[in-house]
């Protein structure tokens, strides 16, 4: 993207997502860097917590609506709302408007927000027209397509396009890259045995791909996958795709100060 186009800076509100906020702040900082490098002015409203999916997917519509109102009010001042997660972005973009079917005023506000809301990688490629980040990462990676991003927002080619421009990076696709890893938000708490089976299938596919690094766009899946890989003693590293694109891959998910 040329310098002229970025002159009038787009104001982007970063929807951090609760998992990134709590578990992996580095993903949030990587998102900020990517957005700023692409010419955006990024702000982080303090009045955000979570998108409300734990309540929404548990049938608790009242709490979901209240949380949605809070998010809408905190973000409606921005030109764009961007989240480093397909799942949370889909919640804001597709599900918030459905919540207020009988409340015309909030429906309108939810719809207005929905139209300006994007998942990070697809925002960079589809809206800002970024096609080469100019990063370097010399490893063989495999990419896990998180379900909401893939099926609700159509995110599949975008991360692969940006990764193709990363110097030194080799992409080795795994079988069933588009099959759920078994995280599923509250699912992994309610049905841990089934979830464990699903993530061990995922781990087998990762292993068979020969990659030494797994990337994805949703932290929930990545925590699940990294947790399973580490339990199995795997040396495969797990990062959010934004950390690689922003060249901010420090220690990998589930790896600490001690060498593993």
């Amino acid at each position, binding site marked *: 993207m040329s310098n002229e186009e970025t002159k009038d800076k787009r104001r982007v509100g970063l929807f*951090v997502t*609760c998992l*990134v*906020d*709590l*578990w*992996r*702040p*580095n993903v*949030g*900082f990587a998102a900020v860097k990517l957005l700023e490098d692409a010419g955006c002015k990024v702000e*982080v409203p*303090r009045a*955000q*917590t*979570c998108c*409300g999916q*734990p*309540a929404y*997917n*548990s*049938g*608790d519509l009242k*709490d979901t609506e209240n*949380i949605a109102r*809070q998010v809408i009010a905190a973000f409606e001042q921005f030109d764009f709302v961007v989240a480093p997660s397909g799942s949370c972005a889909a919640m804001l973009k597709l599900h918030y408007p459905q919540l207020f079917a009988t409340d015309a005023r909030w429906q309108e506000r939810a719809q207005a927000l929905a139209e300006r809301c994007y998942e990070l990688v697809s925002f960079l490629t589809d809206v800002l027209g970024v096609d080469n980040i100019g990063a370097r990462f010399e490893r063989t990676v495999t990419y896990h397509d998180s*379900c909401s991003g893939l*099926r609700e927002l159509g995110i599949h080619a975008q991360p692969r396009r940006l990764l193709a421009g990363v110097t030194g990076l080799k992409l080795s696709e795994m079988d069933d890259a588009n*099959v*759920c890893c*078994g*995280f*599923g*938000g509250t*699912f*992994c*708490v*309610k*049905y*841990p*045995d*089934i*979830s464990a*089976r*699903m*993530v*061990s299938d995922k781990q087998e596919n990762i292993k068979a791909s020969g990659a030494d690094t797994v990337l994805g766009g949703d932290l929930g899946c990545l*925590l*699940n996958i*990294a*947790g*399973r890989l*580490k*339990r199995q003693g795997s040396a495969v590293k797990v990062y959010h795709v934004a950390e690689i694109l922003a060249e901010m891959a420090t220690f990998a998910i*589930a*790896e*600490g*100060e*001690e060498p*593993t």
Partner: protein
Amino acid sequence: MKSNAHAFKARATVALQDIKLQKALANAKSGFVDKRLAAIDALPEFEQLREAACELKDHTLAHLDYYLERFESRVMAHGGHVHWARSPAEARAIVVDLCRRANARRITKGKSMIGEEIAVNEALEAAGFEVVETDLGEYIIQLAKEPPSHIIAPAVHKTRDQITELFHDHHRKYGREERVTEIPDIVNEARQVLREAFLSADVGITGANFLIAETGSTVIVTNEGNGDLTNTLPRVHIVTASIEKVVPTLEDVTTMLRLLARSATGQEMSSYTTFSTGPRRGDDLDGPQEFHVVLVDNGRSRMLGDEFREMLRCIRCGACLNHCPVYSAVGGHAYGWVYAGPMGSVLTPLMVGLAEARNLPNACTLNGRCQEVCPMNIPLPRMLRALRVHEFEERLTPLRMRWGLGVWAFLAKRPRLYHTASAAAIRVLGALGRKRGRFRYLPLAGGWTRARDMPAPGLRTFQSAWRRAHRRQRP
């Protein structure tokens, strides 16, 4: 069939440890998925066909009364009879009565899910009739005294070795002492045993994949030809069908057929597509003397008027089961009733009650693959979520879950408190997990840490780190 859906969780855990079941499921999964994909890739207009079929079905459902009455009048015009059943009990009573009036002794059956739904075999056997399932898969599970585990492949949970043993146990009475181990030999043995049943049956009962309002025909789609022998050889042919099976015209059926086999087995068409229109006419060489259709409602007319209406578009292809990672992991029996997988997780709570089957709509990651492959584009994830809303509103959610959710929501609605509390909690967790970067065990997360580590957070939340950085930059 009595529902065991309440025990889903325990049944799933057992299924996950069943090595033979896991082997059978692994074999089935890849076959179905790859074959469907190849069939659809070879048909560029699949997506348009899918849209046309949805429109067609939505139109039919909007005028269901008209098309059902039209169907009834055409069946009668051809000399057949139509019986209306509101409930499974009414349907069973009608079928048993028809068999009694036919002075039947032996009854052959074609594979049909509505037969399972209304539990017609149990009723017929209790009334003293001999019932023989003639679809190979159904025959196998009838011998094993098990319900189907898949709507199109009822014995998909069985390995070949298990079938060999089952045939060995049950076929010795026909003088067959040798174990058959190769697939063609297994099929051949079943064929020979079933031949006698086909030739001596008094009544044949089939389901229907479609009912045609224009012609009064019932349509079955099979791969083994057993359906044809069931509906042409006996004196009486009884079709059991649910009311949403009706489509307006013969041509409409061709649209649906093009989707059905491709989605189900990856075939362009099934080996047999059989249209039954009334009993044998004067110059017909074969066919039954009597032709009856039993139309079953069982809650479907209620679904027509509520948020689950689109479920009535379902053509029972099984694609959602084949692509569901939960179904692939636990198999159909874990679901505890007739229908399994995503479509079963919607239908079962609607038919046997949410209190009984509340686990089913919850045992789903909402990954959306089912809707993606559904030829009728049924919004299964939306419906599974809708059932969770009913569950929450009817206070069927387990208390622990409800309380946990309540505490979380209380905080999530108060950002200031949330950030303070989360920063403090993360500081502790972060310090504890700093060295290893993960936990092998965490209190309250025992389910998670049984099979995987819990990655540790950092020392600060994003919000607190961001705040610090920005205070420094812009005082």
